[in-house]
């Protein structure tokens, strides 16, 4: 069974204070690891997909990295508009037709204080 654990559950940062969010995972065979942003009452908004250990992707103030056991979402000089819950999800390898569903972690709620 695929499992995803995110830490911390909540994080408060001052505007401009850089930090990292952690996502630890266990999966039978990793097809992809996904990061999403979720605002209150909204659907997950896609940020990044990582496929193999050592891979990195960047978008504005966000950078995602991947190892064989965990992924980090680094936030550089955050702004108040970066406040949201950040979700990590994995997609495992399936035989046959498969279904490619995602297994999510509980998320990290980020608050950036002006």
């Amino acid at each position, binding site marked *: 069974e695929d499992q995803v654990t995110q830490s911390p559950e909540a994080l408060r940062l001052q505007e401009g204070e850089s930090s990292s969010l952690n996502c630890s995972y266990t999966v039978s065979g990793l097809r992809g690891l996904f990061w999403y942003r979720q605002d209150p009452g909204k659907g997950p908004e896609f940020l990044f997909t990582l496929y193999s250990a050592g891979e990195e992707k960047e978008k504005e103030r966000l950078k995602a990295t991947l190892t064989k056991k965990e992924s980090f979402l680094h936030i550089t000089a955050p702004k108040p508009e970066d406040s949201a819950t950040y979700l990590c999800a994995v997609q495992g390898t399936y035989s046959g037709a498969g279904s*490619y569903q995602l297994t999510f972690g509980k998320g990290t709620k980020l608050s950036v204080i002006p």
Partner: protein
Amino acid sequence: EPEVTQTPSHQVTQMGQEVILRCVPISNHLYFYWYRQILGQKVEFLVSFYNNEISEKSEIFDDQFSVERPDGSNFTLKIRSTKLEDSAMYFCASIVGPGLGLADTQYFGPGTRLTVL
């Protein structure tokens, strides 16, 4: 930019009533999904749908749930007899289809908030 749409945004129903949640996936996508998120909890997989049939379902997706693609654009989730514990956000998602050994990105709709009284 193409997006997944869902209706209604909020549905209030009485326990025991049937509800139908509707989704319009991105037009060239082939795999469709329903997930739910109970308030304060993680997003959970319910069911996946490909080639007009269910490809996988979770333990949550019992006989009270069904899915259908009634036409070329809509994808629906029906709950036959709602329970209090069905109150949650329900998200529809879709992907183009798996690439050669690579995962395709799932794009999510804005969700339907279901409240069962």
